[in-house]
């Protein structure tokens, strides 16, 4: 029977290993976007999809400001920097030179110019101020700004195209065009702008692997020149930095906890065999967990892997429990006998933990679900490895005198027993409860998106400097505009822009980016052309009058009138066609294309001064979205939901315990992890620290790790010493693995680590307190 189990499990694990090597490893994708841990958005499916398309486009851009005290030096350095980036061919686009060749704006619009009016010209024609328009146009022809006219006077006497184009221009803040490049300056230096676009998501590890070596080399080369500075901005650098720090942490935490665990096992069992058995157990756990995540989710999140490193501390528990049993009957120990002793306890502890994780896998949080599946599968595989392999593979150690950790554990247990037996213990319990309640009452929650961010101060400083240098730039607050057709989207934008223009006029907003600013809806173009036909190019209209006043010959004027009337000259410029032209390139990320059963675009406010006023703008088909606020709100909501789920998981475990042990014992067993979790939160409250979703998530790990402590002690009976040793090993392992996360650079991993560290130590203590051996109980 034992043999059969051994071989079935061996074959199963070999199959998993083969599958992993052949199929999973080559295709494994590691996700690094922290936001992928959260649900896409709280909006409806179409809005979420639209927002995702837009964010993906924006995320792929990165900006660099190459600066030097002297403009020529900055320009030269920027040219080398841009060349390195574009030569590497890892970027989709690298822009330094603002070269207008091939982007003939006037050429694209000119054939349609009679239907393209600026708001001012439209209003003047609509309100019968044609004569004012004529007088202004006449003055403009004499004035110095006439040099900027895109078309000769005879072809567009009122400079309607020039007016249209100037209102289509979007303010660029502080940047000025010099010698074909965009420059900004401050008191320290002059900077040249290099803008780039990545070919893939900045969060994809293969994009980072391709781009970062090139970028790092180019940055190092540029910065090696004395006086030259490069400021970076864009998601890529933050994402790459987050990946590096996470990988470094996996490395450090992994190595340190590995060393700790190895030392622990060696010192305790004083033999090599337990070590490689542990490696087998952990290896099968990790393999099974990664394989399951790959097939279930298509990719695995970096944070799941960080968690996974911590699994060492959990999976090793089963191994430790099994092997520690030998100190119970040092002389007659065989693994088969241990299986009878300790097998049910291990299976029960595992069932509790897996049940808890399985409950959490039902949560509507992608990140939580992945971690839950990873943990549940990993624990299940580790536990089965112990139960199936150890009876045949384990050997009793040669030295059977109690190891150091066992002696220490026994001493701690005696101490705890003395406290529990002391007369003051009731008062101590009461005081703990009171302090706990006070702490919980003081606890406050802060669900801030900054928790997700691990950027270094240096990167943040660069980001801030770029922002200050360039002044008004768009941010994450946008309007999503939807319509049944591309034309309907533009028309909806035009309605929205009425409110936005009013905000710009009263200074609540500097400006905004919108497609309809570059290309009016067909509906509006037709309307504008009707105005122009009726008032400008009619017999005795404004255009022929102005041309005559300037002294143009009658036949020249007649030729212009004929041009206007010519057939085929009245077709509006359609969005689909305009998007194909090179001039639309800078605006393409505003167009989201077909989303669901309609179309969508983004209108991006720039330089928001009065956020409340902008947020309160409403228009049919338009919706205001503030991604940062959305994320913070989502963190809060999911914290509450996760807390409820944990309560649910405890309830389930409680039912299982009641079924196995009866209500009274179950309550006592359950009080251990629940009490530890509550007191941990309370300690945060007492310290004045705020808690977030991630503290709650950590408590869910405390649940998984700690729920079986009391169960093991209860099941141990007379083998208390051996079980104590196993628990000490387990607690130490957890402290060595998850506890090390308390030193992470990323705030949320740090709060996870700290919560776990405190939570697991309290669980250990409470388990010892609640499950006293019968002889000690008074």
């Amino acid at each position, binding site marked *: 029977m034992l043999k059969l189990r051994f071989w079935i499990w061996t074959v199963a694990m070999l199959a998993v290993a083969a599958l992993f090597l052949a199929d999973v490893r080559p295709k494994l994708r590691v996700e690094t976007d922290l936001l992928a841990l959260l649900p896409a958005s709280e909006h409806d499916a179409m809005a979420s999809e639209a927002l995702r398309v837009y964010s993906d486009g*924006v*995320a792929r*851009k990165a*900006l660099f400001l190459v600066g030097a005290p002297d403009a020529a030096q900055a320009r030269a350095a920027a040219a080398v920097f841009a060349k390195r980036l574009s030569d590497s061919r890892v970027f989709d686009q690298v822009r330094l030179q603002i*070269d*207008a060749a091939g*982007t*003939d704006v006037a050429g694209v619009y000119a054939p349609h110019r009679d239907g393209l009016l600026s708001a001012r010209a439209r209003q003047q024609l609509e309100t019968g101020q044609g004569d004012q328009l004529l007088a*202004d146009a*006449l*003055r403009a*022809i*004499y*004035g*110095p*700004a*006439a*040099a900027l*006219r*895109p078309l*000769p006077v*005879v072809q567009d006497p009122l400079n309607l195209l020039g007016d249209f*184009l100037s209102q*289509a*221009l*979007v*303010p*660029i*803040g502080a940047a*000025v*065009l*010099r*010698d*074909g490049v*965009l420059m900004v300056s401050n008191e320290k230096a002059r900077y040249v702008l290099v*803008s780039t676009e990545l070919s893939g998501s900045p969060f994809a590890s293969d994009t980072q692997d391709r781009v970062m070596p090139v970028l790092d080399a180019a940055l190092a080369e540029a910065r090696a020149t004395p006086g030259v500075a490069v400021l970076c901005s*864009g*998601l890529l650098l933050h994402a790459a930095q987050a990946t590096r720090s996470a990988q470094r942490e996996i490395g450090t935490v992994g190595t340190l906890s590995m060393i700790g665990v190895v030392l622990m096992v060696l010192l305790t069992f004083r033999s090599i065999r337990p070590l490689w058995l542990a490696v087998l157990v952990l290896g099968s756990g990790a393999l099974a967990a990664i394989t399951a995540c790959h097939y279930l989710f298509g990719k695995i999140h970096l944070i799941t892997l960080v968690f996974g490193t911590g699994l060492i501390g959990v999976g090793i528990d089963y191994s430790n429990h099994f092997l520690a049993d030998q100190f119970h009957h040092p002389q007659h120990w065989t693994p088969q006998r241990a299986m009878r002793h300790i097998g049910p306890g291990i299976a029960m502890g595992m069932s509790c933990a897996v049940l808890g994780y399985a409950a959490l896998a039902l949560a509507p949080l992608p990140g939580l679900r992945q971690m839950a599946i990873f943990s549940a599968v990993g624990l299940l595989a580790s536990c089965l490895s112990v139960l199936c392999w150890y009876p045949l593979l384990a050997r009793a150690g040669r030295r059977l005198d109690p190891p150091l950790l066992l002696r220490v554990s026994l001493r701690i247990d005696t101490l705890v027993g003395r406290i529990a037996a002391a007369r003051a213990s009731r008062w101590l319990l009461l005081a703990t409860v009171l302090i706990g309640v006070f702490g919980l009452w003081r606890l406050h929650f802060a669900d801030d998106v900054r928790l997700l*961010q691990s*950027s270094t101060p240096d990167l*943040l400083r660069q*980001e*801030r400097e*770029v*922002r200050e240098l360039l002044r008004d*730039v*768009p*941010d*994450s607050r946008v309007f999503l505009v939807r319509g049944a057709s591309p034309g309907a989207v533009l028309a909806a934008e035009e309605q929205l822009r009425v409110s936005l223009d009013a905000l710009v006029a009263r200074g609540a907003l500097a*400006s905004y*980016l919108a497609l309809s600013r*570059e290309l009016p809806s067909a509906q509006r173009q037709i309307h504008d052309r009707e105005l122009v036909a009726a008032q400008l190019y009619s017999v005795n209209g404004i255009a022929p009058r102005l041309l005559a006043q300037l002294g*143009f*010959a009658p036949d*020249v004027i007649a030729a212009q009138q004929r041009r206007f009337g010519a057939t085929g000259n009245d077709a509006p410029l359609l969005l689909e066609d305009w998007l194909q032209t090179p001039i639309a*390139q*800078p605006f393409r990320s*505003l167009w989201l294309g077909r989303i669901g059963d309609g179309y969508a675009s983004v209108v991006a406010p720039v330089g928001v001064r009065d956020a409340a006023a902008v947020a309160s703008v409403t228009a049919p088909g338009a919706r205001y979205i503030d*991604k*940062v606020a959305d994320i913070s709100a989502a963190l809060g909501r999911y914290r509450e939901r996760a807390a409820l789920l944990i309560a649910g998981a405890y309830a389930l475990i409680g039912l299982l315990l009641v079924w196995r042990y009866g209500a009274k014992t179950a309550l006592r067993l359950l009080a251990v992890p629940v009490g530890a979790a509550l007191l941990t939160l309370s300690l945060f409250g007492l310290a004045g620290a705020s808690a977030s979703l991630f503290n709650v998530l950590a408590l869910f790990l405390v649940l998984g790790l700690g729920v079986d402590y009391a169960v093991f002690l209860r099941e141990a009976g007379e083998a208390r010493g051996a079980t104590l040793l196993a628990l000490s090993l387990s607690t130490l392992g957890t402290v060595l693995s998850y506890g090390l996360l308390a030193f992470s650079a990323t705030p949320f991993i740090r709060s996870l680590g700290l919560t776990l560290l405190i939570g697991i130590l309290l669980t250990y203590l409470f388990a010892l307190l609640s499950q006293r051996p019968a002889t000690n109980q008074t």
Partner: protein
Amino acid sequence: MNRKMKSSLPMLAIGLAAWINCIGGTATAADAVFAHRADPATVQKLLSAPARELSRSPVLRGHFSQRKFLRELPTPLTSSGDFLFARDLGISWHTRVPFDSEFVLSRTGMMQKDSGSVAMSLSSDQQPALQIALRLFVGLFSLDLDALAADFDLYGIKTGEHWQLGLKPKSAAMSAVFNEALVDGATTVESVEMHDASGDRTLITILDMQTAPAPTPEDRRHFAR
């Protein structure tokens, strides 16, 4: 907070490229001067001593007469008036004939006053191309060669006391303002001729150009908003 920053900055690229794109371009007349490419230092040597001083003067003022040659228009449009360049304040281009219209460009924006009352006013945020025009005008009339050399290839010849300076934009973006310009003078700038991107040509003759060490209170009033 920072998430906001991260996702937004790249958007800037959209805005930046957007306005740069309003460019046209046609070829214009060739002149003898364009056979003589020169760097700023060489051109500097061609200039007379007083002309060299212009680029350092805080204030320049004078009268102008302008002739605009438009395509398909048999006779040029003529106008005249006076101008004021104050280095720290901006430019006032005041047409008096055939009508009174003053065009004021400063670092903060642009203003048009018709017969003394403000007819239009734009901040430079709303019209960034104006800032390019401002820099260009000051550069041309004050012969600030270093500033001009940043955006234009320079050409120069000298006949006796008389010199001629030619400019061609280095980048296509700059040809939005003009394709070619010629500046003539002796002790001071005497005429500026610009071939516009649209195919039109503007000839400005300068009369009585004067320098001053500082703007007068009267001068300052031109730039008051």
